[in-house]
């Protein structure tokens, strides 16, 4: 060992890098302070200090939930579940062809159909289902059908995007082997690609169904039927115990759907 000739100090960063990092942190803190000042300029502090009292007041008016309201909620709950399930099915029906058109390894035309399919996916994803429902209620009047279609249109993008990514990730070796047998295009899809994406497909569909149950519970706010409609009418007449009851029903539904989707995902892996 030639110990004498080696340095005994070591730094992760050079002095210059260290200074840059320190200045960046300083800038971030300054920005935060400045934003806080702008944000609080128009705040009426009386309301903020009063917030706990107000929350306690609403809380006391919301409690206890009005249990006798439950029977009236069962039918809208059934509507909400149907809206989520039918909407998910509609979304799957539209998303599967779109995904195969969008995936680089299955699209029949990379120049025309692939960009078109990607556009459909982006368009569907960029509009929230509440907005879709708002538009559809305006176009076709209030009711469950508008809700089903709104859920379906929003789901196309979600399912389509995840599914086309799964299709692009398939192992190409079995695909090559099936092509080598002289199989046609549709047969290659059926024998080499579909079996590889099937687990992803079920996982994605159940996941989206799970999300759709939550979303369909509030679509009634804009007139698309289901629990949201009840929520809106209860809020309008300030019937806070009923609002609590509705929130509890939504919570229970979401817990159940979460459990179902976890079971399904476990079964297919």
């Amino acid at each position, binding site marked *: 060992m030639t110990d004498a000739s080696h340095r005994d100090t070591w730094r992760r960063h050079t002095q210059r890098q260290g200074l840059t990092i320190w200045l960046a942190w300083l800038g971030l803190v300054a920005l935060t302070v400045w934003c806080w000042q702008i944000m609080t300029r128009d705040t009426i502090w009386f309301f903020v200090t009063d917030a706990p009292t107000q929350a306690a007041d609403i809380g006391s008016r919301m409690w206890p939930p009005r249990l006798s309201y439950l029977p009236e909620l069962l039918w809208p709950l059934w509507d909400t579940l149907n809206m989520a399930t039918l909407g998910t099915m509609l979304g799957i029906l539209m998303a599967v062809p779109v995904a195969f058109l969008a995936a*680089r*390894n*299955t*699209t*029949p*035309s*990379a120049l025309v159909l692939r960009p078109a399919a990607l556009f459909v996916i982006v368009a569907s994803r960029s509009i929230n289902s509440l907005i879709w429902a708002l538009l559809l209620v305006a176009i076709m009047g209030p009711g469950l059908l508008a809700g089903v279609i709104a859920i379906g249109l929003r789901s196309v993008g979600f399912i389509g995007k995840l599914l086309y990514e799964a299709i692009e990730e398939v192992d*190409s*070796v*079995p*695909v*090559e*082997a*099936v*092509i*080598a*047998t*002289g*199989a*046609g*295009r*549709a*047969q*290659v*899809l*059926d*024998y*080499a690609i579909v*079996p*590889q994406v*099937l*687990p992803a497909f079920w996982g994605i569909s159940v996941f989206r169904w799970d999300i759709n149950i939550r979303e369909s519970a509030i679509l009634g706010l804009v007139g698309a039927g289901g629990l949201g409609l009840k929520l809106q009418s209860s809020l309008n007449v300030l019937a806070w115990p009923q609002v609590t009851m509705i929130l509890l029903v939504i919570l229970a539904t979401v817990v159940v759907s979460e459990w179902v989707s976890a079971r399904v995902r476990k079964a297919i892996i």
Partner: protein
Amino acid sequence: MLELNSLQKTYRTGDKALNDVTLSVPEGQIVGLIGPSGAGKSTLIRCINRLVEPTSGSITLSGRPITGLGHRELRAMRRRIGMIFQEYALVERLTVMENVLSGRLGYVGFWTSFTRRYGADDISRAYHLLDRVGLMDHADKRADALSGGQRQRVGIARALAQEPELLLVDEPTASLDPKTSRQIMRLLTGICAEHGLPAIVNIHDVPLAQQFMQRIVGLRAGQIVFDGAPSALTEDVLSEIYGAEDWHAMRRGAEEDRAAEADSVAHLERIGA
């Protein structure tokens, strides 16, 4: 009889994978293709069923041209050429039987294959082949439940289900242990002998090639540098094929693999599969 006439393949990267390869394989002959990685072995057999598109030259099988076929004729030609892969290339989530029956895809229509309602001939042939490769009891298992050696047997049964006139075999034993490798080679050569089936076998294990092949072709940098009986494979010939220490060829090998992969992906995109 398979004939390759001054076959050339140049990848888009400018890599010359095959350079003026002329070769003929008569009925019933098993040819071992040896050479360092990157010599173009993989490219050569993929040119024969046009998973890789040759740049120039011609290929004929029993007098019928393979190069220059349209989509429909190419499918009809491919079903006469069985292919066996290094990593088995089974569809893992399908059953063993479905994998074997997929060898019939070139013969049956989409609806028959989609509903899995194959004709009695196809089914009895599939059972016969499973029996021949010793997997009769595994027909309804999923392919991913089998061991490596068993999977390769399914791969062999699938290729034979095509009733091929020619077998292309790409490193059949590279993923197997020495004992299983010998069993697979014995099975493969036995089946070829039974049916008088010609085969081209890419193989990097020289002793295994000498033991099982009737003829050896040595490829180096895309050119044939040896063609003869296994017994003629002396030390001198081997060092001519592999080079004493040819690091350059090894590096090219990695490059060629990447280029081949990119090329076949591009090809798959083009045919929309």
